[in-house]
């Protein structure tokens, strides 16, 4: 990190541009935008779009680190651009590119289809044999039971972990960090009984065993979900489950 020189008035952005109707491949374009101490990279992009070049496309909405839209590569590292301050990249230039490991739709916008399919495939909803009628009130869940999955429920689906994952880079089939953490989120919820239904996919080749535990995903996760930890936990449980199924073949895994 460089110390803020007090006289910085502009900062240079190098932005990957790709317009499918006219460009064959992405090209870096350079723009100088005003520098303000309290600005994040997203503010600079908005300035650019509003005042300099209306053709730049990117996703954003909440600008408070919670909607998960604004992930991009900033100087080669996956970041939420609404939480990445210009002041941490002085004196610049700052290179802004679409998230790695995803096809590019246009400029800084990536294609989410693969993620969304895998997301749905792990059945991220409560599965139960029977429902307690609403009249009987809530399912009891102690703070300790809540704590058992809470961390994995904090995922904002920003996909920065996929952009950082060396396995996903080479293996399209890999379910990937956030989706596996999501499966653990439900498997560990005391209200859920669907572990068995999720098992096959999670334990398949595309599931946890693909992960070589590099841990890059947890390092870039802005919400401390620790997907690497989730995968590790699932591995341990599956080994235990596997042994258990031998010992008590008719019991629940």
């Amino acid at each position: 990190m460089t110390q803020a020189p007090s006289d910085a008035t502009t900062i240079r952005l190098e932005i990957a541009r790709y317009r499918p109707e006219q460009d064959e491949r992405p090209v870096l374009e350079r723009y100088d935008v005003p520098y303000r101490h309290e600005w994040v990279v997203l503010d600079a992009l908005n300035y650019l779009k509003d005042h300099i070049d209306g053709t730049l496309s990117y996703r954003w909405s909440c600008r408070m680190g919670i909607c998960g839209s604004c992930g991009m590569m900033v100087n080669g590292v996956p970041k939420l651009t609404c939480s990445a301050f210009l002041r941490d990249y002085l004196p610049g230039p700052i290179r802004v590119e679409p998230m790695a490991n995803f096809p590019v739709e246009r400029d800084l916008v990536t294609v989410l289809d693969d993620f969304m399919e895998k997301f749905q495939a792990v059945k991220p909803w409560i599965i139960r044999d029977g429902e307690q009628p609403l009249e009987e009130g809530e399912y009891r869940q102690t703070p300790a039971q809540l704590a058992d999955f809470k961390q994995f429920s904090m995922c904002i689906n920003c996909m920065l972990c996929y952009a950082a994952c060396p396995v996903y880079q080479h293996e399209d089939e890999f379910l990937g960090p956030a989706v596996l953490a999501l499966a653990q989120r439900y498997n560990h919820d005391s209200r859920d009984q669907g572990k068995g239904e999720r098992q096959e996919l999670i334990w398949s080749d595309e599931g946890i065993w693909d992960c070589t535990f590099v841990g890059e995903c947890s390092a870039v996760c802005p919400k401390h979900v620790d997907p690497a930890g989730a995968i590790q936990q699932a591995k341990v449980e599956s080994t235990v489950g596997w042994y258990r199924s031998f010992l008590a073949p008719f019991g629940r895994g």
Partner: protein
Amino acid sequence: MAEITQHDIVIIGGGGAGLRAAIAVAETYPDLDVGMVSKVYPMRSHTVSAEGGAAGVIKPGDSLEDHIRDTISGSDWLADQDAVEAFVREAPRELTQLEHWGCPWSREPDGSVAVRPFGGMGIQRTWFAADKTGFHMLHTLFQTSLKYARITRYDEWFASRLLVEDGRCQGVVALELRTGEVRGILGKAVILCTGGFGRIFPFTTNAAIKTGDGLGLAYRAGVPLKDMEFVQYHPTGLPGTGILITEAARGEGGILVNKHGDRYLRHYDLGEPLDLGDPRHPLFRTMELGPRDRLSQAFVHEQELGNVFEAPDGAYVHLDIRHLGEKTIDQKIPFVRELAKNYVGIDPVHQPIPVRPVVHYMMGGIDTDLEAATSLPGLFAAGECACVSINGANRLGSNSLPELLVFGARAGRGAAEWAREHPESSRAALEQQADVEEARIRDFRGGDGGTERIASIRADLQAAMESGCGIYRTEATLRAAAESIAELRERFRSMRLDDHSLAFNTELTGALELDLMIEIAEALVHSALQREESRGSHQRLDFPTRDDERFLKHSLAYRTEGVPRIEHRDVVITRWPPAERVYGRAHEAGAAERGT
């Protein structure tokens, strides 16, 4: 020619209200199929930002009657009381349903759901999931919706027009961002769940997508917009960004102080401050737990008295939570700490947080009845884009999330009933309308004859709204805003886009949004001009008191070729006759009586 697809029901919006509506259809009539159109992936919807919580009566000692009363007095008696009753009755069931779907509500040691105090509520009744309540609710709803195969999503499709034929709404025209394709998406019933419109103001807690498109679509189709003049300023936004510091910070005991260290709210008829060590602090409906309109108004007075801190990003006061201690802060309101650290560079465990009032929530919206139906047959609306009304002149914090659920579900069921009874009418006519809309969008995209950038028109619109329709208004400020908006409409005609391409053209969607923003801003200003009284969040310096004689009424703005036509409709009063809104003093007496 625009392509056409057909569903039984089309829902526009994938936020809390839209998802709840979709699930309600799927559960009530599994044979019906739903098309859900959203300009962002559903989990990006603005519901995700809601922090504090969702109100619903479940605890012993609380009662439906009390929640109703708090909501009605909070609304300054402008809420329809039959709607409030229905809402309060159904909210607990809806919140429990969400619990069954997996929402990670914060818990008591015995495993029951925990509740917290909130502003304007006379007892603890706000369910919460730490301070990411909306985030957890939205993700729970979205993930649950994935199990229904008959919900087809159109993610990142922008709805730009309603299709109306034979006097019935029968679909929408939408633009696919990825390809630029324009398509008619037909449905026998349509539900608008497009959220609020804080973005017509410059300084707001609202996300970029909150531009009020659904209101604009309904308004253009002849449906009136109700109570548009009521704009809620939240008293605690971060200067500069407008990022919200949740009311839960005060619910947990945080205090507001001015630059002299004075708990200034005590000068504004909100009761006397208790010592921070007093176990009764924070006292319900008192001081920091007064309603939002009153707290934001107090700030303006303090500013006039020179009692606030001045800074380039705007004046501010301090929200002090240091006395809660690190442990409580991390457990109950960790996001507050995260946001303050990230965006203003202070750690609230050790320093007070700078805050100022910020546009937060729109009480007004598309006029609907209790069943979420609008005056246009086949068109329903729910969530922040709708006005039933339960919020009247001032919404109570934590009433809006349960509102999404209660009226989202009602809209889903109502639309399903409607769709079963009404076949599609003339396909050819609908196709033709879709083609007209396709041509309009093509013109927008192609237009390069003009000179005006959309960003500059938008900025001027926001500035006009702030100076004309802020916390305090007068006829003169409102007239000036109305004039500016009329000029902006002219300027919009000569807008020009840099971007003429098809793929993910966000300058184009920005222009489509701006077109509708101008429309609804105009409805807001004219509704405010006609309301010659002060009530809740609508404060007129030239008419400083509430006037039940003339204005115990809803405003209804109808679109015309000229300025909007404003009509009024009586508020539904059932069992709770209008009274003075009292915070602080009388309540202390009442609370003492009840021994709370």
